């Protein structure tokens, strides 16, 4: 009810309001490709964003491959230097490892399922 009264009060325009409306009034601006340019810009940005991650991953991978290979080689060499008893003891300390892997796999499957439902 109150809002109706307010709207009514707003609608009652005096001569001054009509004068201002006529001064502020302006001819509509023709589109002339404006909206097409906006849509083109949005689509370009959309594709750029979509491609940015795979491209960044590929570049990062290419840069990282050499030091990563060196790291793996060093790790293999290091494990061969460690006594076999120590390796066996470390493995025995984390018997829950298969459970952790299984849990992670279940979580990943659950999240993927949720995402598929969302799509």
């Amino acid at each position, binding site marked *: 009810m109150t809002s109706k009264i307010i709207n009514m009060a*707003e609608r009652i325009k005096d001569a001054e309001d*009509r004068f201002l409306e006529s001064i502020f009034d302006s001819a509509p601006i023709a589109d002339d490709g404006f909206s097409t340019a906006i849509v083109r810009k949005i689509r370009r940005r959309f594709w750029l964003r979509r491609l940015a991650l795979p491209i960044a991953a590929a570049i990062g991978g290419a840069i990282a491959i050499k030091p990563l290979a060196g790291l793996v080689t060093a790790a293999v060499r290091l494990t061969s230097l460690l006594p076999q008893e120590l390796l066996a003891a470390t493995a025995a300390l984390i018997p829950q490892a298969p459970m952790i892997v299984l849990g992670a796999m279940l979580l990943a499957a659950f999240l993927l399922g949720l995402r598929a439902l969302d799509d």
Partner: protein
Amino acid sequence: MRNGDDHQLVVRAVSAQDTAAFGELVRRHQSQVRNFLRKLTGDMATADDLSQDCFMHAWDKLQTFSGRGSFIGWLLKIAYTTFLQSKRKSKRYAQILEQVGHKMETEGQSFSAQSEEVTDLDKLLAVLDDEERAIMIMSYAAGLSHREISDATSMPVGTVKSVIFRGKQKIRTSFDIKDHQYG
């Protein structure tokens, strides 16, 4: 009806990332947004650049449009924010230039002097500050209600009304208009 159509287009654009639906919204409202910014900046090229930015921001924020008010009211809110941000940026830029020895036009001069042909509206807008100008344009050019202007400017409705009242008074005083001279 138009509002309903706008809302349907917004839903399509958001749910399916439908750029064609958004393009239709741009086509429908570009004139009002560009006119609003042209009046606010007093410069066509700047206004059109800001309009582009405004629609790009609108696309990014489209999912935040609740559908409560009109779509044009929501768009003008973004346009006004874009204008204020650009103004802040150019102010900072002017300060930096001043620090290195350059001088830029002062705000008052840049408005209305840019266009060769000074219209009645330019003269009228020149006596108002940015806030009054934006609110008067929203009210008298875009035809937004006080409630919609309040949403667009994040001001209480009462403040919107008093800004309009103040703007009208400034115009009356500056142009020495008496009540009986209207119409």
